[in-house]
């Protein structure tokens, strides 16, 4: 099953093309790292895939449907780059609301919330207000939200932003655990090493165009690092 697909997707803002004919495809269980310099079009691609924006041309689908249809987003866990959480809500209250919106049964919500809180190490803080959490703990909460309901597809935008080295290692563990149970993964990041460790395919965008795409082994030449391959692709 195809989890997500962009087919010659174009997104224009006035005369400027943020995406200029990008095609991507992610099958169930695959993990794709989306790389590119600032302004390359990574976030625009994610916005199209989540139905936040409409493509100017080309096709976009999520589990075979138009992402603007609510049903297409069932089974999607999302962690945005700019994570805004309701400061006055409690950690548990926020996750309970999100679990309800994700379509998790009322009877199963508490158990599901407890499970993700334990996973991200926030079980002890469940009753605290979100406003009192540090940046790193908020990012952990963002992960907990994305992992609610065991999503079939995880879309993570700069997932390790604000995490300390221990948090980064934990995040990698959660991502790999999701992959092990068969979730597809799309990670947009500047952290090349994280992408290298969690993804098996890489797509590099530059100025709205797909400049390189393939398995890690195909993109990275002998004796090269992913950083070398990335620089080569965007300076071509």
């Amino acid at each position: 099953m195809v989890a997500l697909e962009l087919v010659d997707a174009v997104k224009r803002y006035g005369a400027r093309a943020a995406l200029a004919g990008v095609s991507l495809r992610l099958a169930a269980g695959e993990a794709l790292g989306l790389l590119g310099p600032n302004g390359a079009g990574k976030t625009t691609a994610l916005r199209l895939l989540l139905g936040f924006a409409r493509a100017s041309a080309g096709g976009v689908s999520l589990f075979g449907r138009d992402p603007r249809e609510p049903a297409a987003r069932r089974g999607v866990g999302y962690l945005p780059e700019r994570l805004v959480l309701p400061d006055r809500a409690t950690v548990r209250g926020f996750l309970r609301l999100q679990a309800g919106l994700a379509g998790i049964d009322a009877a199963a919500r508490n158990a599901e919330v407890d499970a993700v809180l334990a996973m991200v190490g926030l079980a002890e803080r469940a009753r605290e207000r979100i406003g009192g959490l540090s940046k790193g703990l908020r990012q952990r909460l963002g992960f907990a939200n994305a992992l609610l309901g065991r999503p079939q597809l995880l879309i993570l935008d700069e997932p390790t932003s604000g995490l300390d080295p221990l948090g980064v290692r934990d995040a990698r563990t959660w991502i790999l655990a999701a992959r092990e149970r068969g979730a597809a993964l799309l990670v947009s990041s500047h952290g090349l090493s994280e992408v290298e460790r969690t993804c098996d395919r890489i797509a590099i965008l530059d100025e709205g165009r797909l400049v390189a795409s393939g398995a890690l082994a195909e993109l990275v030449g002998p004796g090269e690092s992913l950083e070398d391959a990335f620089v080569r692709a965007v300076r071509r």
Partner: protein
Amino acid sequence: MSGLGLLAREALHDALRRRIAFAVAVAALASVAMLDSCTSCAAPITVQGEVRELSELAGPAGLGTFVVLGLWLMVLAGVLASDHLRTTLEDGSALLSLARPISRESFALARLAGVLGLTYGAGLVVLGAAAAMLAARSGLPWLPALLAGGACALGCATVAGFAMAASLVLPRAATLLLVLGGVWLIALANGLGAFTRVGGWLGWLDRSGPPLGSAMALALAPWLDGATFAGDPVQVGARLAAWAIGAVLVLTYGFRSVEIRG
């Protein structure tokens, strides 16, 4: 509870947590205190050289007070709506909910419900207290007040729906001006139209626009003891309901077309 219900509850909590909620509570209580003071006054007054008891004027005074309070509530709904949806888009807090299997329509309706929940709460206190005091102290019947309350509720939904839709394309200051200017103009058109035939665009506004003032006034006409206003209360009420539905449709259609910045 459905996604819409969960979001509506959250939107109401958001509205109650806003600083303006405290101001609304204070203003509502001040209105009730003012009503208490006004309705307990029993001094004789002179009208065109004739001495009359204030209780004789309870009907018109009650009607005027009720309509003014209703218009105040409609403005309040518009002011609250002018940023209740827009802010969630600007600060990015809507992203997590909109990435869920929730329709845009549900999200917009939930935000509108949050605004209306706060406004209706204030309305229940203010209009309820007004109706109770006028009934207890001046013997004015409850039913017209109840119908006028319903008209006020439709007016609030109309103003809030259009304000929220306008906030998607206009800056907040412009939306606020639109709310204040729009309600004031419609109230003026309705006020003039109650006593005389008004021509021009003001007349059109009275006859075809949302009857924010006249629907309430027509509902309260039985308080006037024989005097009547121009207009059929049922037709005017139906026109206001149609405008309220139109406002909600404009909002949901508008929000469906909006691109959300991630």
